[in-house]
């Protein structure tokens, strides 16, 4: 059986411990918030990478991506070849009042035109402003963080490995050429 007042003392001890501890409150409007890595704030568009393949709009479970495009003829590169046609993006809009932030569009994009940005400060007074058009989605692109680094023992990315192999080959070739030249010089003297 506990003696009289033991609960009070225990409560006071909790109070004192919490008084001595630092406050956990994040001072959001005054200090920038500490967001977790890869946090899903807003979807950014890198327009140059978009080929208007419509995969994102078709995969979107909310149907919140609007894409308009037209075809343009590109003059042939060689003489006598037929002209090619290419897709030109007219409108790319994401309705953030519908979006469920699943990221399927980003997964589906084969050309990395869509990226997650951690920005979240885009509450609006009018719901129509929540449909972000192409230029606004481009502005989000500059807030996209750099991709996380590789694991310590990971294989090198394909691009770097290919470039390195090419550089080594070129270096070996130039070395061989130089050696041959010196041999030629030695033979000539």
């Amino acid at each position, binding site marked *: 059986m506990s003696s009289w007042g033991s609960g009070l003392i225990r409560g006071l001890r909790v109070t004192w411990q919490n008084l001595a501890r630092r406050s956990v409150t994040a001072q959001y409007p005054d200090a920038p918030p500490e967001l977790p890595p890869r946090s899903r704030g807003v979807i950014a568009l890198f327009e140059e990478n978009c080929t208007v393949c419509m995969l994102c709009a078709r995969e979107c479970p*909310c149907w919140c991506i609007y894409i308009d495009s037209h075809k343009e003829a590109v003059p042939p590169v060689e003489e006598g070849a037929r002209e090619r046609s290419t897709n030109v993006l007219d409108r790319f809009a994401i309705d953030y009042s519908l979006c469920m932030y699943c990221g399927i569009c980003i997964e589906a994009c084969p050309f990395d035109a869509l990226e997650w940005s951690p920005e979240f400060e885009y509450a609006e007074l009018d719901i129509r402003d929540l449909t972000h058009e192409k230029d606004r989605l481009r502005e989000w692109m500059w807030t996209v963080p750099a991709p996380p680094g590789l694991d310590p023992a990971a294989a090198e990315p394909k691009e770097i490995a290919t470039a390195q192999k090419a550089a080594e080959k070129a270096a070996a070739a130039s070395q061989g050429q130089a050696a041959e030249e010196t041999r030629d010089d030695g033979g000539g003297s």
Partner: protein
Amino acid sequence: MDVNNPRAATVDLPTPSVGPPADTGHVGALSKLAPEPARYVLNWGRRYSLWVFNFGLACCAIEFIATSMARHDFIRLGVIPFAPGPRQADLMVVSGTVTDKMAPAVRRLYEQMPDPKYVISFGSCSNSGGPYWDSYCVTKGVDQIIPVDVYVPGCPPRPEALLQGILKVQDKIAAESLGDRYPGSPPEREPLRKRLSAKALLRPLIGPKDHDDVA
């Protein structure tokens, strides 16, 4: 339930209309006709004492609760989550999926709030139906039944996003004039001749449908 009985299926909804309702409410003449310096002080007082009423309907309500807790703590911004009910609240946060079944209750509790009142629509579902916009039973945005001041996007939005929405409401309150917001004249007060019966207070929002044409 007898499906053949037309009286059994008397559930009907008010026709949703986009935009604020015709009767936008009233405030007193003093706060309406206050000169600029007095209005500044009044707005300053109102923006930092927003008694909030959380209309939590789905998972977004958890984010609202997270915002009210020690980590984000919106009492720092003067948002007080201790309103006993809508009659004591200035700000309503509709967080979650508004279904057609719930819509009359949302409307009724909004009408119970005293003017001036503000509404934050929190999350995709209450903004425009969100992932459920194609559902037969979901209201496509809470702004179809009540006027909304700030839309916070997200599914669910971060607690910081709600804080930013609250800052936006506070900026709106600081810049506004109540005379512009409530242009209508106050309703003429009828002398209370008799006590309202409990039946009048508990009257349903929608009357029973006339089924003469069905029968």
